[in-house]
């Protein structure tokens, strides 16, 4: 079985697409944010590979072609940001100052907690980009030789938390201004939070979606200050 599949270039890609769809279906049916299609797909694929005793390299032989599109899709992220141009022009100070504060808070808090947990350099570096969008975060982890799946899982947990907690946190922290709500949601929990922000309101959704890319780029700029601390 393994022999035959190792020759296959479509097996890995096919089951990735298939199980992602299963994940989307489960999320649609349960309407539960924890039922994240990416996490469901990954759990199911690992399950199938373990049961059929297929190793990761055999799977990745086909699946790696999906990743080929990562650079083009990151380039494409410029489009949703450009669509929010009016909002950036309207509130430039609020956008850049608050997101920069958020990025420093993310990196600083990850540094302090990594110290407390006694994490090694590689684990620490892999966690640093965990608040930003996966496309940019993965790039950071690869640049600094971190462990990409740790980054992706951190980003997914963060996104799900932001999505579930956004409204409660706004109330609790008394963040009432729509611009501030959107910036807080997008900076703390990227695209998954943004889907919640879009439900809350138009301004919130727009600010949150521009925060995804702005926070990503600011993180790329600031992260070199932090990588060598542990």
């Amino acid at each position, binding site marked *: 079985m393994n022999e035959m599949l190792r020759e296959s270039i479509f097996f890995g890609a096919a089951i990735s697409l298939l199980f*992602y769809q299963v994940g989307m279906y489960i999320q649609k049916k349960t309407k539960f944010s924890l039922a994240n299609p990416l996490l469901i797909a*990954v759990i199911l694929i*690992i399950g199938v*590979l373990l049961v059929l005793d297929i190793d*990761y390299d055999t799977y*990745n032989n086909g*699946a790696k072609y*999906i*990743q080929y*599109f990562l*650079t*083009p*899709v*990151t*380039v*494409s*992220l*410029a489009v949703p940001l450009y669509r929010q141009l009016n909002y950036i022009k309207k509130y430039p*100070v*609020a956008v850049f*100052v*608050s*997101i920069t*504060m*958020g990025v420093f*808070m*993310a990196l600083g*808090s*990850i540094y302090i*907690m*990594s110290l407390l*947990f006694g*994490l090694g350099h590689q*684990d620490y570096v892999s*966690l640093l980009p*965990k*608040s930003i969008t*996966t496309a*940019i975060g*993965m*790039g*950071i982890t690869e*640049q600094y030789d971190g462990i990409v*799946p*740790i980054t*992706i*899982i*951190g980003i997914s947990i*963060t996104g799900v*938390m*932001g999505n579930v*907690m956004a409204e409660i946190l706004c109330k609790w922290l008394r*963040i009432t*201004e729509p*611009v*501030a709500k959107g*910036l*807080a949601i997008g900076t703390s929990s990227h695209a998954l939070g943004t889907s919640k922000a879009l439900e809350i309101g138009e301004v919130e959704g727009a600010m949150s979606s521009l*925060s995804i890319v702005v926070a990503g*780029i600011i993180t790329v700029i600031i992260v070199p200050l932090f990588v060598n601390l542990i």
Partner: protein
Amino acid sequence: MKFIKQMTIIFTISFIAELMEFLIPLPIAASVYGLILMLIGLFTKIIPIEKVENAADFLIEIMPIMFVPSTVSIMTRFDQMKQMLVPLLVISAVSTFLVFAATGKVAQAIMKRKGAKKAGDRR
């Protein structure tokens, strides 16, 4: 035809970005150079948004699937992941809360000051 033209622009930028990563000795991924090139193109209107938006929207729609293969690779490091589970959950929760609070509070303070200034101008 429209899709081919749009994909051509996106892939050409990706290629230039790759060259930049190769030539510029900074720890920045090709994808980020590409993103910045596309932003410059759009903001200067050298690349009109209509010339790329359909292909870009399609790629963004299928983006999460692109993270599946590298996430599946945790199966090759289960032991390491077991040790990381608690730190990962705690760090994610606490830092998400702190980032949310910092960004939201700062933005709200700036917006309120802006609002007060506007009210003052009117007087």
